[in-house]
């Protein structure tokens, strides 16, 4: 095989051969990444409950999913929590990014580092420390505790996304607005915010997805009433296979694909 390749591509064979090898390796990596997901989606349409052997095509599991009370209830909780956390994250993240861009703060570097901490801190440490904080503050666990926790790890992602966009923004824009008599607030709202919209939207989508998928931190900060969908799925998956979970997973995957494509589209818009 290598001899053949060497004859067909005389020079520089070493590099070209390496490239072929790398390509094949990358293909294997993608097979590894997508194979299991494809199997899962395929089985979500299988009538067999044990889903080893393909029996026949059905939408039954999707139907059962739509009628499953715990799943619907926890999905509702997740949507409420993710929506609230996203709104808070967008407000804190966008204003934070703008202010850090607009003003020179003493200790700006320290602030920036602190903002990165929730993004890279191990989730379990964040979960335990927030749980203890809520105990100490005698805040009853419920929706508020999860929303506070989720906002804390979501807003840095919005902030960083907006910051990246701000770096490419012409500073003359705001000055022009101010020279033309706009108050700083009006200049921010009418000039800066529209420029930042693609970054804010993709940051918001990121925050929403992170919140919807979050398991570990929620694990420590929910109450039975505010249980989220990932916790419900985790509980069901621990018991073993469940065709309803296949259907749910398929829906999750399709939603994620739509989300990624939309974010890419936004990025392309912003780059123009």
């Amino acid at each position, binding site marked *: 095989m290598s001899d053949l390749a060497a004859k067909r591509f005389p020079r520089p064979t*070493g590099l070209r051969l*390496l490239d072929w090898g*790398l*390509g094949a*390796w*990358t293909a294997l*990596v*993608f097979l*590894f*990444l997508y194979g*299991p997901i494809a*199997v*899962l989606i395929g089985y979500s349409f299988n009538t067999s409950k044990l889903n*080893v*052997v393909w029996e026949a095509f059905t939408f039954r599991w999707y139907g059962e999913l739509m009628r499953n009370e715990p799943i619907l209830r926890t999905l509702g909780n997740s949507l409420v929590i993710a929506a609230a956390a996203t709104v808070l994250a967008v407000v*804190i993240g966008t*204003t934070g990014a703008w*202010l*850090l*861009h*607009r*003003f*020179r703060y*003493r200790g*700006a*570097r320290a*602030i*920036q580092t602190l903002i*990165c901490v*929730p993004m*890279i*801190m*191990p989730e*379990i*440490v964040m979960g*335990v*420390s*927030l749980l*203890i*904080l809520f*105990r*100490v503050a005698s805040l009853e666990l419920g929706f508020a505790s999860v929303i506070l*926790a989720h906002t804390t790890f979501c*807003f840095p992602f919005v902030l*960083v996304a907006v910051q990246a966009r*701000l*770096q490419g923004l012409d500073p003359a824009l705001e000055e022009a607005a101010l020279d033309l008599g706009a108050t700083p607030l009006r200049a921010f709202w009418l000039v800066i915010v529209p420029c930042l919209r693609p970054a804010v939207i993709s940051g918001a989508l990121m925050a929403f997805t992170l919140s919807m*998928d979050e*398991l*570990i931190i929620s*694990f420590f900060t929910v109450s039975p009433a505010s249980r989220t969908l*990932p916790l419900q*799925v985790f509980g069901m*998956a*621990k018991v*073993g296979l469940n065709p309803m979970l296949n259907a749910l*997973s398929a829906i999750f*995957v399709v939603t994620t*694909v739509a989300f*990624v494509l939309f974010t890419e589209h936004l990025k392309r818009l912003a780059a123009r």
Partner: protein
Amino acid sequence: MQALPAADAENPHARRATPMGWWLLAPMLIWLALFVVAPLLILVVYSFCSRDDLGRVVFDFTWTNYARVFDDTYLKILARSVGYAALTTLICVAAGFPAGWFIARRPPAVRNRLLLLVMIPFWTSFLIRTYAWIAILKSEGLLNATLLSARVIPQPLELLYTPVAVVIGLVYAYLPFMILPVYGSAEKLDNALVEAAHDLGAGPLRAFSEVIIPLTWPGIAAGVLLVFVPAIGMFAITDLMGGAKVAMIGNVIQNQVFKARNLPFAAALGVVFTLLFVASYLALQWRGRRARA
């Protein structure tokens, strides 16, 4: 960390913060103080507390919790967690580095499409992705069924709830987190440098170890940090893929909080875990500085 954006100090039009500027930033600073700094400080304080007979936390200064972290049972679990995470990281580097590198070397149109293919698993819930492996690995699952019908094996293999399954689950969950940062550094690397090394007579191995590795180190380091540390504490994957058989530090923390209700001990474990995180971060930084020197 190099992968994170630098502080936005470059804006030449930034003005010195007025009191108004501080007031406007205050909500975010208070949020960070309340929900990032305060919890960590309380965690440290709690780790030195003890419990009374009723299970309430008593504020006295004791090293008992830390002594317990380093007694044989927990030290073994800690070592096992670090071992599994290290193995996971190693496999992720081995699998992810060539892929990230290859994607970065494609023409832009192909590159963006391949990158999209990495983003999708990156953003798909790890829970869903771990669950996918249960269907494949369990004793009456797809892999066993295939191998049985092909008569490769006489009876089903016990794959699920084994250490191998845990590592597969961890690698599967974290692989995209390695590919993306490696891609990030490899994309910035000037191809001329690699060709120059080649033209100057460096073999592929030498070009790799003396040009490619040092120049993509920030990406590798970021990837290692994104894989190694979370993998140590990831109790959900060990629960799903390892059953209750393979206990990791994350499972212990979770048990101490919800079953044993020993918050001070859980706090001590959390502090040790955080220190482990800081140590690996500093080690990677140090290695990076040495590679550049």
